[in-house]
């Protein structure tokens, strides 16, 4: 038995699906769309099993929107989630919001026209009770001809009865005529017959007061800033512990692999390529999970809709809708989930614009680079360092908004979709739904990490590790010297051996394919003040931005311990081939600007291609961000050279 789960947005459809299926569901897409589908097999009390398909939440089956088209096609048997056989569902489970029955019954009228066996679940019955709202279920059953089950998906109230009722689905006894007006009339008549709400009660006035504050042009923005500050504080504060743990586990795994395997290509590939590369991406998983968990909780409370309302005013001048704020916010942790979250933007051109500009936001991977460069810039004025950090965040946001404005007035020009948004009732969030959403998002991220990111990691490892160069004469001579003094002075010998290793590492990196590419592209970066080592750093950071710091550590200090003060000192005081400081102030400003604005993350490009449906958009994103970063860095370098000098 195949059952399609349908309903308006904000009716608790996802909560119900999660309650009925737990972790057993499968997430995929409907073919040819970016619409996500979730399916699961559930056991029914009579011993049989049913397949439940969660369809996108829609306000109407008849409107011209991709979500509604998917629902229509699934009901008609014209499409099915990827991997499933196309067939008309055996039954429809239609979920209605008990606190807003009038509008939800219009939707039921549309599903009734499909003439499929139907079960009606009246959700949020607890809220309706609290509001003194009476719904006559017997009359509703009689008027529709379908089984009606009152439920509260959040607390699981009524779910046993619902699953027991699923096999008893019935074709609706009455079907409204085809016009929208007929559906509305059918719904109004039933609403009048089955439901009675008391006059506005205190709770409603409380909701209005909350709305008044949260949507106020000034107070609303202040509340939004406060909520977001709290959210990011929690994300950055509590994600640190698991992030450190992941870092430690992957470092140990890499060490164990390097020790266990015979020295050579395979050992290097597994330890330095696969384990280290995947670890460098997975380290952001705790931040991503925590962010999605908190956003899901916020969405469930009803607050996010109010935030969208407030932010719409702010984003409108650049051509983005209020819905874009969640992706842009998420991008401050990592651009990968941010681009996936852009699915919430209903208009395609606005969604593409959101995807294109999201990576301008300062993600966590940029922070180690900022920390290094800000330290170099403000070594003698540490109090200014936090200001520089704030400046970097502000520059990223400004670049994103300016770029959105540009795209929305050129390539992605279209009249903005008119803003109309339901402001759902405030309610206690469902912990279970938040956990399930987090689980789903985590799986998608891991799937990316396990495929595209893994492939990119291997390619970049190869470029950085090959060709294997012979040790430089200076390293050989140091080793010979260390061997001579080792019996008499083992400590000094160890030190000299370490120096030789560092020189050899730096030499190997400089002579690898990545190093040669760095040399090759250096003339391009010359106007920005970058020498060949910085150019190598920029190239290797294509894998992930934070790789820049470890590359600099290896190329300059020959040691990848980026936590070591001496290594950081070596980087800060490094000299160019002509003896001048590598990180003079103009270069440091230029590099900082470049890292704020540049697209230095191949995994992000892969996700952009997937979510936009074409590599063309990923190429445009890379070209645009590179051009903006180059221009910005050139401007920073020129201005800094003219004003503060080296």
């Amino acid at each position: 038995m195949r059952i399609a789960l349908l309903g308006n947005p904000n009716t608790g459809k996802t909560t119900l699906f999660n309650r009925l299926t737990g972790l057993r569901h499968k997430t995929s897409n409907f073919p040819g769309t970016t619409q996500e589908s979730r399916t699961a097999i559930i056991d029914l009390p009579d011993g049989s099993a049913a397949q439940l398909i969660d369809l996108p939440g829609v306000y109407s089956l008849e409107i011209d929107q991709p979500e509604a088209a998917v629902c229509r096609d699934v009901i008609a048997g014209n499409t099915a989630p990827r991997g499933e056989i196309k067939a008309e569902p055996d039954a429809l489970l239609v979920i209605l919001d008990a606190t807003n029955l009038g509008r939800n019954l219009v939707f039921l009228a549309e599903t009734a026209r499909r003439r499929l066996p139907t079960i009606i679940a009246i959700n949020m019955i607890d809220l309706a009770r609290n509001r003194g709202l009476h719904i006559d279920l017997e009359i509703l059953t009689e008027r529709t001809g379908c089984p009606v089950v009152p439920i509260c998906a959040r607390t699981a109230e009524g779910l046993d009865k619902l699953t027991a009722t699923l096999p008893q689905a019935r074709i609706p006894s009455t079907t409204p005529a085809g016009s929208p007006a007929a559906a509305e009339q059918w719904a109004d008549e039933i609403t009048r017959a089955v439901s009675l709400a008391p006059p506005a009660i205190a709770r409603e006035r409380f909701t209005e007061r909350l709305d008044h504050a949260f949507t106020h042009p000034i107070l609303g923005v202040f509340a939004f800033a406060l909520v977001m500050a709290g959210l990011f504080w929690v994300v950055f504060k509590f994600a640190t512990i698991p992030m450190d743990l992941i870092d430690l586990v992957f470092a140990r795994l890499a060490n164990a692999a390097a020790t266990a395997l015979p020295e050579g290509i395979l050992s290097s590939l597994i330890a330095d390529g696969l384990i280290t590369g995947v670890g460098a991406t997975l380290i952001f998983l705790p931040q991503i999970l925590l962010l999605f968990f908190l956003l899901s909780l916020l969405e469930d409370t009803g607050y996010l809709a109010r935030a969208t309302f407030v932010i719409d005013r702010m984003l409108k001048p650049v051509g983005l809708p209020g819905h874009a704020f969640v992706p842009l916010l998420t991008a401050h942790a990592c651009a990968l989930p941010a681009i996936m979250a852009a699915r919430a933007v209903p208009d395609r051109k606005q969604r593409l614009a959101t995807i294109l500009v999201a990576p301008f936001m300062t993600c966590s991977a940029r922070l180690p680079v900022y920390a290094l460069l800000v330290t170099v810039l403000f070594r003698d004025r540490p109090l200014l360092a936090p200001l520089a950090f704030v400046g970097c965040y502000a520059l990223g946001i400004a670049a994103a908004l300016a770029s959105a404005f540009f795209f929305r007035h050129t390539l992605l020009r279209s009249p903005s979709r008119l803003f109309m948004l339901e402001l759902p009732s405030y309610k206690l969030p469902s912990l279970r739904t938040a956990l399930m959403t987090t689980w789903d998002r985590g799986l998608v991220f891991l799937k990316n990490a396990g495929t595209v990111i893994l492939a990119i990691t291997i390619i970049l490892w190869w470029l950085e590790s090959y060709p294997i160069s012979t040790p430089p004469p200076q390293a050989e001579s140091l080793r010979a010297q260390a061997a001579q003094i080792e019996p008499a002075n083992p400590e000094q010998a160890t030190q000299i051996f370490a120096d030789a290793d560092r020189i050899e590492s730096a030499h190997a990196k400089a002579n690898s394919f990545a190093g040669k590419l760095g040399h090759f592209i250096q003339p391009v970066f010359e106007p920005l003040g970058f020498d060949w080592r910085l150019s190598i750093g920029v190239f290797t950071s294509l894998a992930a931005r934070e790789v820049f710091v470890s590359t600099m550590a290896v190329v300059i200090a020959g040691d990848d311990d980026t936590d070591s003060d001496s290594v950081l000192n070596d980087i800060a005081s490094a000299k160019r081939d002509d003896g001048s400081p590598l990180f003079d102030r103009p270069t440091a400003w230029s590099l900082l600007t470049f890292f704020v604005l540049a697209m230095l993350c191949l995994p992000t490009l892969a996700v952009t291609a997937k979510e936009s449906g074409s590599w063309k958009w990923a190429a445009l994103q890379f070209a645009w961000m590179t051009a903006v970063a180059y221009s910005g860095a050139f401007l920073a370098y020129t201005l800094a050279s003219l004003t503060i000098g080296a």
Partner: protein
Amino acid sequence: MTISDTTPPKLTHREECLCDLETGTCARITGCRLDRQEGDMLRALGLRTNAQIQITRSGEPCIVKITDEAGSSCSLGISRRVAQMVTVSSSDD
């Protein structure tokens, strides 16, 4: 119009634009001049002819409370451009 505390409210009905209504005003939707796609969406959200509404926040965007036949309500946020296209018959009651 000024209503003194002692005078019973005078019921007046007039056609006007939704965007001109002040916070707290009650009205009934009489028409919508949006194009088909946007109009269908608005209708699906519950803002349809004869719907009983109240403005709970005027401005850009504004918030409209829609009350159904049974007295339950839901709220919508709509932009000024949408509100400009919707006509209402308002009453000062």
